[in-house]
């Protein structure tokens, strides 16, 4: 029987522009923050395994071997350390592998630290670097980018289900309302539906990025890091940490075809559905048990689609729930309480860990006033890699 595994420390930097620092400094900041949260920096010497999540330091920062560098920067040698790269799902993948390391008996304490510095390049170059995860011949070489893909995807959804651009803006308004209260968010400014959708100046204030997606339908380019400390709750080492563990109840991962055109229906995200089903099964819960969720809204259409695939809403109905404020912070099922990728930001390799930090913060009751979910029991995070071809779902529980 697998041991109970929980999170006893969380760390997070303020997302945004970290151009004054190097990548390893930024990751080390969150790692140190996690140890301080757990009880003190000396706890780093209890770590049996370090996993670092990062997507593209080689391209963004001309840097490799980031895990080795982090261990040295943190004075944690000779602790084993490896890098985990799974596109924008690198963060949740690293947490999943950390769980597996403890479950296998090879470790009792695992530090998962994640980071990405993307603002070292222009927005266009960042878009190009992220696009390298598309299929090289069938997609990337044809000029497809992730915003381009998401734009086509949104158009298809609009045609099939009646979604409007105003509905996309409503998701952004909700996410920014949460982000404005999150001290770690990149964009801490609330936006209004009048300004970004209804008003006379909206076409320029909220200009098209990849029609029908506009600036406020798309995440910003962000630097940032986050970290969590996983522990075998049944190990004597667990007693060394001050914080009551938040248990990892369910984990699920799944893949789909690399080429989007090989899928029967491009609007069906099989990997999201499968990964969530696996996580539900492991946790012994279903969609109705989830108190709140962090869903990978690199483009706001993803928040809608993912919320349908994981079973929160019927297919084609999620935007109606947004209209009815069901996903607001005080709604029936709050989604992206952190502000999501849309407002909090999306430093690609760090996002999955950042989502899990938010789950822990909410389950501990430590979120800022105005964005704390009332008495949550289970939180779910869906970290979405590629164009839905590699997805990791995590469910945490407050026991």
């Amino acid at each position, binding site marked *: 029987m697998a041991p109970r595994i929980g999170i006893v420390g969380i760390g997070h930097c303020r997302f945004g*522009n970290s*151009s*004054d620092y190097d990548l390893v400094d930024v990751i080390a900041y969150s790692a140190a923050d996690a140890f301080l949260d757990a009880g003190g920096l000396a706890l780093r010497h209890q770590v049996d395994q370090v996993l670092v999540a990062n997507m593209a330091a080689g391209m963004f920062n001309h840097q490799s071997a980031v895990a080795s560098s982090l261990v040295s920067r943190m004075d944690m040698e000779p602790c084993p350390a490896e890098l985990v790269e799974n596109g924008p799902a690198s963060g949740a993948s690293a947490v999943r592998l950390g769980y597996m390391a403890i479950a296998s008996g090879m470790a009792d304490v695992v530090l998962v630290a994640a980071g990405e510095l993307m603002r070292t390049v*222009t*927005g*266009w170059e960042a878009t190009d670097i992220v696009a390298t995860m598309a299929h090289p011949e069938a997609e990337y070489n044809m000029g497809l980018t992730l915003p381009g893909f998401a734009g086509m995807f949104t158009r298809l959804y609009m045609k099939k289900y009646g979604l409007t651009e105003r509905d996309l803006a409503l998701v952004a308004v909700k996410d920014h309302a949460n982000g404005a209260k999150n001290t770690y968010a990149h*964009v*801490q*400014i*609330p*936006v*209004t539906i*009048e*300004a*970004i959708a209804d*008003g*006379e*100046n*909206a*076409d*320029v*204030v*909220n*200009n*098209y990025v990849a029609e029908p997606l506009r600036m*406020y339908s798309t995440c910003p380019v962000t630097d940032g890091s986050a970290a969590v400390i996983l522990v075998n709750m049944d190990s004597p080492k667990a007693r060394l940490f001050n914080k009551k563990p938040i248990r990892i109840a369910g984990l699920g991962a799944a893949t789909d075809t690399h080429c989007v055109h090989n899928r029967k229906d491009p609007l069906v995200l099989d990997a999201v559905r499968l990964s969530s089903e696996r996580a539900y099964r492991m946790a012994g819960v279903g969609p109705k048990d989830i108190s709140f969720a962090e869903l990978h809204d690199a483009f706001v259409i993803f928040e809608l689609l993912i919320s349908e695939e994981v079973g929160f809403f019927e297919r084609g109905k999620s935007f109606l729930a947004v209209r009815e404020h069901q996903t607001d912070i005080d709604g029936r099922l709050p989604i992206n309480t952190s502000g999501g990728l849309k407002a909090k930001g999306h430093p690609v390799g760090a996002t999955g860990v950042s989502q899990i930090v938010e789950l822990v913060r909410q389950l501990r009751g430590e979120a800022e006033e105005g964005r704390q979910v009332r008495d949550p029991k289970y939180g779910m995070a869906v970290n979405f890699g590629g164009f839905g071809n590699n997805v990791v779902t995590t469910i945490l529980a407050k026991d």
Partner: protein
Amino acid sequence: MAIDALEQKLRPPEVTLKPYPAKVIKLASGEDMVVRECRREDAGALLGTVYPLLGVSKDFYDVVAARMYNEILAWFRYRIANMFAIVGTIDGVVAGIVTSRHVDQKLGMSLHTLTIKRGLRVGAQLFAAKMEHHLDVLGEEEVWIVAESPIGFKRWMIEYELEDRSSGFPAVRHELGGVPTYALTRKLWEAVRPVKCTGTRPVADAQLRSAHKLIMPSEYVQLPGWKRGA
């Protein structure tokens, strides 16, 4: 030579520029930003707004603030020809400032863009207003532009797809020095105006009145912990 006569010798020749008509832009936050041309009596508030940023090295605020301080002071004291400044205010508080110079009927010389309130594309809107003044109001054929910060380069050179004129150096040389010169031509402006430039005219009297007496920001995100007068 009498002092007044000497002063007249020191002052640059100037032409009377057409005024920039004020407009209001609803920012994403829902706040209304009034965009208007600065008057000479605004100089004190403008200088007081810029001054605290002289020591902020991040994102080259120090360079831009120092140069803009010089430009506004020189404009106020008649040491630069045909300069104009445009300010964006929210409830009277300065959110951003742009400076520029009319060279002749064909050419405008963009000087600086200083964003005080970050995260709402205030700088982008004010830069667009500056280009609107040069090309649509003053009727120039093109504007020369340089960037002194990476953010400026991303916002202007890349987003506007400006023409790179650096190969023409030294014949083509922006007045701010040897930084590579780029140009916004009328043709480029016509292409980008619909997606870059907005604003509602006329501005309601009450809003215009609130924008007339400039209020210096009491705090700056660029200066955590700093408070005016503290």
